[in-house]
């Protein structure tokens, strides 16, 4: 059981909360308290819009423990509109639809469960933007 670890990460995982640097204005995800650009302290929380596009992607057939029941699934590097690259699962999408540059949006989904009786872990995934998905 790693309940405390998941609890510590839940704010950033549920709603893509990172940080912004007061000195140079760069947005950081995940939050790390020191700006990657100017090395100044970056402690101001920032909730990302969740809008981005696919930078690169792959399909997982042999999943790590806890994800076996959801194969095959897709993992992507998402370029957020504020700048950072985030690694996340794709959801609500068929493999053949995905392409580099595809507009996506963040949704909060079930990542996995700690067995039958453990906690349910929720977090960000990305899907094709809904307004464009139906056109």
């Amino acid at each position, binding site marked *: 059981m790693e309940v405390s670890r998941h609890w510590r990460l*839940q*704010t950033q995982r*549920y*709603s893509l909360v990172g940080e912004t640097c007061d000195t140079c204005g760069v947005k950081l995800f995940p939050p790390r308290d020191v700006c990657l650009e100017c090395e100044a302290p970056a402690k101001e929380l920032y*909730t990302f819009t969740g809008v981005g596009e696919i930078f690169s992607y792959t399909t997982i057939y042999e999943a790590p423990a806890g994800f076996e*029941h*959801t194969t095959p699934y897709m993992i992507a590097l998402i370029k957020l509109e504020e700048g950072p690259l985030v690694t996340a*699962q794709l*959801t*609500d999408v*068929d493999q053949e639809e995905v392409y580099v540059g595809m507009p996506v949006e963040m*949704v*909060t*989904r*079930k*990542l996995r469960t700690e067995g039958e009786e453990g906690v*349910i872990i*929720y977090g960000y*995934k990305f899907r094709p933007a*809904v*307004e464009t*998905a*139906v056109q």
Partner: protein
Amino acid sequence: MSKDKLMKPQKPVGIVGYGAYVPRYRLPASEVARMWTGGSGGVPIQEKAVNGLDEDVVTMSIEAARNALKRARINPQDSRAVWVGSESHPYAVKPSSTIVAEAIGAVPHTQAADWEFACKAGTEAMQAAIAFVGSGMAQYALSIGMDTAQGRPGDALEYTAAAGGAALLIGPAAEAVALIHGSYSFVTDTPDFWRRAHANYPSHGDRFTGEPAYFKHIMGAAQALMEAVGRTPADYQWAVFHQPNAKFPQRVAKMLGFAPEQIAPGLLSPRIGNTYSGSTMIGLTAILDVAEPGDRILMVSYGSGAGSDAFDLEVTERLLAVRHLAPSTETYISRRTVIDYATYTRFRDKLKMS
């Protein structure tokens, strides 16, 4: 008598934001028939919405709530309550509502609770939110009705037990997209449908679910509310009733004196099934997507066990300014991927893995 029993808050309130959610997958009723009746016989709806492997009442409520907040344009920290009504809460003990509240940024200075009353858990939460705001205890309160309904394989309810729902943010009338003029509740002990603790699937009283259950309670609540506010069916542009299938809401509308056109925009069950706690509320969001300022709406939920909550609503000018700020109900319904029965059994965790 019913005038005295009209539930009307001291301060005028309304819906200040609304949001729908329907998952992407659809199971055609013909697939259920193919599996269990050899494809013969009629089916109660066209298809139902099914949640994906990574979706549950919490994730679906989060999305509907975010849509409601986008339309309300308020700081989530200003909501004093996050209430989730459902009969498919992912945990038996641990609130769905705290996870939703955390994800939408409403914590920690808020009330949070889960509600349960079969298919009317969402409108119970809505009534409580009206009271919270109408008494001055809160500026805003969020009520959600959401389900991933359970249907026993081969049972009549497997055709319709669906996933989806809506979030309604209640707030002061001055900021409302729809004013709430009053509500009325009508409840008896009626054993038409139940699920015992630890049971995976509900049981029901077959034909008993119609006359003494659904029709009696919806008629009771609707007629008493209309009498109390001094209105008749002709005074409403739109009406929405709980939708366990396609037939019941159409029949109760006719019995009450509503024309088919009045219930058309909110009648979603043929295309998404019965979303249980979400059913009446998402019917309302579909109506709000097309309604005009000044339109009156009658909304009546039904929950087995049994009871109905009826609401008298009036659309304001503000609706037109915020409607486009989040995806419409129709956008979610149009986003559809058809699945077969095998995929359905996997998505709904019906396969024995060990």
